[in-house]
């Protein structure tokens, strides 16, 4: 487990946001606004929360592995 999971998720969401941002330059009707509010924004929010959760549990698991596993230079 590593921090690249949240980086990967962030990158995927940024790509979506970029594409949608470009589309919004020409797509400006109420449907676009509705789609942004009901689809894109909730996705971005869920990604933000998920990334924090991933980073936190990744850090917790790393600490667990350090405390519960054998020493790295196990000379015992």
């Amino acid at each position: 487990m590593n921090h690249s999971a949240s980086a990967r998720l962030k990158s995927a969401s940024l790509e979506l946001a970029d594409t949608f941002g470009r589309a919004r330059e020409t797509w400006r009707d109420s449907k676009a606004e509705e789609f942004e509010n009901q689809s894109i924004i909730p996705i971005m929010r869920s990604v933000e929360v998920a990334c924090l959760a991933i980073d936190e549990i990744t850090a917790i698991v790393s600490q667990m592995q350090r405390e519960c596993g054998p020493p790295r230079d196990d000379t015992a």
Partner: protein
Amino acid sequence: MSGSGSSVQVHSVETLIAVKTALSKFGEESQAVVTGMDMDLRRAWYWLDREMPAYWQSHIKRLEFEHSEAKSALFRKRLQAQGTDHAAYDTAEKELVRKLDKQLELARAKLETIRRWRTTIERAADEYNARVRGLRDQLEGGIERDSEILTRMVESIQAYSAIGVPTRSGPTASPASAPLEKNESEPES
């Protein structure tokens, strides 16, 4: 439909398809991340709940055996040195026993640490799952629904394009396509 209107329709469709493609790609990538995290967490739990207790118990058994051997060696050394002035010769044996004592203490403490971590990890996993629920919901239907909305918009534009929509201000202009036409036709300065 005018020539420029037709190109606008194509552009509108391309725009929506680009969003749909990006949405689909995001869904696949996110699903891979979430699935990967689920697997990592299952592996981490197995490591904590099964592998490490087995490792430390086995390690403790080995240390107990070595400790017993070291104590016997120390005892033999002391017997040999009895009545002589060679008491200092058992220094190495005493040091080994002391070292193994310390290692045993640490190994036994690891089992207690593991027991405490089980509770911590269970709570952390519950919290993680609660916080990722929103993204899972998106992946388990939200994105598909959004994608269907875009597909319907594309189909709608294509349908109007096929029958020929006379003007963007015409009564049959689709909500999905008309603003795109308007924006394309009247770009902001």
